[in-house]
């Protein structure tokens, strides 16, 4: 018997015993909710087993997850968009308040949407380019003025304030130095040598601090999620908290 098999059988056995105790001790009842908690706990532990190394439990959980997720998204797109926004309106189902113009206009995205599906056949695949052109073109068009406003103008303006002779003024000068040196670091037209090299070195320091900040904050975030998951195992499943 391989190690994998031992692990698999051992885990399933232990898991069954723990759940039997929980059910027998009255911590979990025989309803759907309790069954759900047991399934969720089993999947959680199976996925965590990957931390030890790849094994059949992880593979099983991974593939269940992939399959369920694909159908889950299907449910979302169907009810929220295809049925909820297209079919209901096109066929005036229920008390839908749509007008004829709105109905006719809906034909456009419906046709473009069907064109996307022409990708599935080699002969007709080129038709899907029309839809891609729409998605990419509109996305690009929406982007330009909004990025100028939200990420360029709105970010430049608060940087160029009068510099005062106090702590705020000093911070403002530091922010200015940081913004400029980072911009210089991402200059591609000149080699990083001499003065430019010096400024871009300062840029790297600022970048490193912000990476450190992101790293520190991300550690915080991920631990919070682990706290949530451990709470589920200890409280909802094992009832030891």
């Amino acid at each position, binding site marked *: 018997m391989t190690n994998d098999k031992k692990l698999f059988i051992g885990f399933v056995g232990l898991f069954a015993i723990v759940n039997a105790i929980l059910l027998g001790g009255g911590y979990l009842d025989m309803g759907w909710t309790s069954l759900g908690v047991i399934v969720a706990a089993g999947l959680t532990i199976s996925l965590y087993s990957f*931390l*030890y190394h790849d094994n059949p439990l992880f593979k099983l959980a991974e593939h269940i997850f992939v399959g369920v997720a694909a159908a*889950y*998204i299907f449910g*979302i*797109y169907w009810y*929220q*968009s295809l049925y909820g926004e297209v079919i209901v309106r096109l066929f005036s189902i229920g*008390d*839908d*308040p749509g007008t004829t113009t709105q109905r006719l206009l809906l034909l456009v995205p419906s046709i473009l949407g069907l064109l996307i599906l022409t990708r599935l056949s080699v002969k007709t695949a080129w038709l899907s380019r029309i839809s891609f052109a729409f998605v990419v073109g509109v996305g690009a068009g*929406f982007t330009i003025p*909004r*990025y100028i*406003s*939200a*990420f360029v103008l*709105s*970010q430049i*303006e*608060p940087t160029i304030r009068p510099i005062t002779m106090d702590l705020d003024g000093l911070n403002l000068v530091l922010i200015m130095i940081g913004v400029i040196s980072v911009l210089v670091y991402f200059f591609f037209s000149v080699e990083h040598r001499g003065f430019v090299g010096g400024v871009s070195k300062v840029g790297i320091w600022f970048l490193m601090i*912000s990476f450190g*900040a*992101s790293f520190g*904050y*991300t*550690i*915080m*975030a991920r*631990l*919070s*999620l*682990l*706290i*949530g*998951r*451990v*709470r589920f195992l*200890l409280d909802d499943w094992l009832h*030891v*908290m």
Partner: protein
Amino acid sequence: MDLLNIDRRIIFVFVFVGVAIPLMLDFSFPIKPTEPVIRVFDEFERVAGEKDPVVLVSFSYGPSTEPEMQPMAMAILRHAFSRDIKVIAICLVADGPGLAEQALAQVGAEYGKEYGIDYAFLGYKPGLWAPIINMGQDFHNAWPRDARSTLISDVPVAANIRDLNDFDLVFDLASGDSIEFWWIPFGVEKYKFPFSAGCTAVMAPDLYPFLQSNQLRGMMGGLAGAAEYEHLIEIPGSATAGMRAQSVTHLIIVAFILLGNAAYFASRRKVTA
């Protein structure tokens, strides 16, 4: 033992124990709110002073970040309902509605608020930022019905909302792109409504430029931010409790980093000596 290359599974065990043990014990650290969180609190207090205050709360997170985000949602809803602010909630991510409904129902019941009159939930809309443009133009067109399929004009709290500017505050609870790439460029930038947000700790560092430019009026970042908010409204919840495990594991990781560096410098000295 080679400290430079200890098996990573040893670290895994320490992290797990560092989380699990403090959760089962009871001790606490004092909490002091930081400025971005106080600014969120002040925004809600400002709204409470308006006439017929209504806030739009956008749930842009799903269950995978529930441990970080749900405590924030509970805290701001408690604050809003305790100050008689009406709440209209929406979802911009597909797997958010369950959490939103759960939070609204629970906090609504705590304060005896009535669905439809004091708060409403309109459901989920796909399209990332596209619904924001839609809401900025015509709120009823974006949400013809609430999540219970009632026509929007029959939901009293939402009946008089024409567009985003009719809200005294828009508050986004975000676990991904929604603050920086949806609400700010496609909403705030054009329609200029007051905007605040809560987000996972991962995103918080990226949002400081928006705080300074006031595109974002206040920000609650991560479980620590939620704990600070719970402190401000004086209702400790799961975030405050989570701070124990959080503090301990942070110290464990810092200890490991210092250990790693000590081993690194020791090994280097050996080589040079």
